């Protein structure tokens, strides 16, 4: 009797609730896609025209205007790198206190933690281009706006990860230092800092890599860097120069990524 009951059992991987939830997600996805396809505005003439236009674009881009590099691109490229680097440094300086404030083991105060988290989320949810637009309106066009945009966008990222690294720090060292009567600042520099150092450097390098990419577009809204060269060349329909700028961005991004990977391997 019992054996047949056991044999009759049907093994299922998911509970009915799980299955319904999954089905609901799939259904929602399909609905969203269908609705989007139906209502998105696509002009069929443009779509039919696309291969021709693409061929035309590539033809205009070739040959790449390498001779334009020394007079129009080099300086802007260096400016982009400075914007990315200075922006990252500024972000770290501002993110550290907020990160410390967000970590409950250093700042045992729920309201302060909450305020810090809110600041970090606010920084992350505004795109760097929007930050750039805001700072261009405030400080006028130029590299200052770009640097601040990069910095404010990065605070959320760096602060969040620094805060998490601090929360994961081992308590043993900290308690040992506190037992010797070390003041708060010494506990921070001799207790927490050595523990979060590897995570910290990896976060900073990672963010710098992202910032090099992002700072390349900021010029489109007037915030300095190579994006401005790109914008000028595009507005004048000088597609061979556009190609030059794109090649320069591609090269810098690849070099930055290789450098970051190499440094990371060395220090971690």
């Amino acid at each position, binding site marked *: 009797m019992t054996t047949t009951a056991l044999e009759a059992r049907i093994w299922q991987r998911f509970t009915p609730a799980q299955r319904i939830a999954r089905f609901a997600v799939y259904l929602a996805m399909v609905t969203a896609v269908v609705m989007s396809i139906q209502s998105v505005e696509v002009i069929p003439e443009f779509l039919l025209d696309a291969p021709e236009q693409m061929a035309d*674009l590539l033809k205009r881009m070739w040959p790449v205007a390498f001779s334009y590099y020394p007079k129009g691109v080099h300086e802007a490229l260096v400016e982009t790198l400075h914007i990315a680097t200075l922006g990252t440094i500024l972000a770290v300086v501002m993110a550290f206190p907020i990160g410390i404030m967000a970590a409950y083991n250093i700042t045992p105060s729920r309201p302060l933690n909450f305020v810090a988290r809110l600041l970090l989320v606010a920084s992350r949810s505004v795109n760097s281009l929007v930050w750039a637009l805001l700072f261009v309106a405030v400080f006028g066009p130029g590299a200052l706006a770009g640097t601040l945009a990069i910095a404010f966008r990065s605070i959320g990222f760096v602060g969040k990860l620094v805060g998490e690294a601090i929360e994961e720090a081992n308590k043993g060292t900290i308690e040992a230092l506190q037992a010797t009567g070390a003041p708060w600042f010494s506990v921070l520099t001799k207790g927490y800092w050595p523990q979060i150092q590897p995570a910290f450097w990896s976060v900073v390098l990672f963010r710098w890599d992202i910032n090099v990419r992002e700072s390349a577009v900021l010029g489109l809204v007037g915030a300095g860097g190579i994006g401005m060269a790109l914008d000028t060349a595009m507005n004048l329909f000088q597609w061979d120069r556009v190609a030059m700028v794109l090649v320069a961005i591609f090269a810098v991004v690849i070099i930055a990524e290789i450098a970051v990977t190499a440094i990371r391997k060395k220090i971690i």
Partner: protein
Amino acid sequence: MNANAAAVRVAFPSNWWARAGWLLLVVYIVYACSLLDFTWARFMIGLDNGARFIGRMFPPNFARWETLLKGLTESIEIAVLASTLGILVSLPIGLLAARNLMPVWVTWPCRLLIALCRSFHPVIVAIVFVKALGFGALSGIAALTVASIGFIGKLFAEAIEEISLKQVEAVRATGAPFMNVITYGVLPQVFGRFIGFATYQLDSNLRNSTMVGIVGAGGIGGALFAAFQRFDYDFVCAMLLSIIFLIFAGELLATRVRAVFLERGKVDEE
């Protein structure tokens, strides 16, 4: 002698390399600031401007909510379609780029394609597509699809490279054809992480779809940029608030979807 040495020992010896590093950093900051022409006077003028600017942003003006809603809907549509297309295309590319399953002559071109897709910011890709496909949502979809291929393709390939080959071998030992090895040996192992990447990318596409409009590729970005140039700062504020709300909602939704598919779903990255 021994006692003497112990007395001299310092608990935290000075690290001269680190100090030199800090000095170098300060020198760099001063040099770069002078190169980019940052001055205190400019900063102070800016603060003045900033106060006036914020004064004009509030209260936010929702009077033209129809334009706002139209832009937001278009942004959402761009994000949904670009994510779908991107995921569909990046699956085979990611699979072909995994070095533990494919020969070198297959992985190489795929990895190059992924690197190319990843290295340009979506807005720059959008510029090229605006020229090729004309103004409108289509260029935005194409640009964000490229970005999705770069991101999901790379992470998917890495996830496949980390799988356990035992299960693959077991399936192979039963004489299963190649497609079955993939479906039963490889995909179940990476499904969880794949959901993580996909929801993250949907979230990221949603953020970027509000921006590609700056170069004319559809979505709310176009209206935002236009309002900035017309100094309609109260409308700008309304749009920014709705974009932030949309992104929050998107993040919440992504977390929910992850929770449905994973027991303890979490993707490690911003």
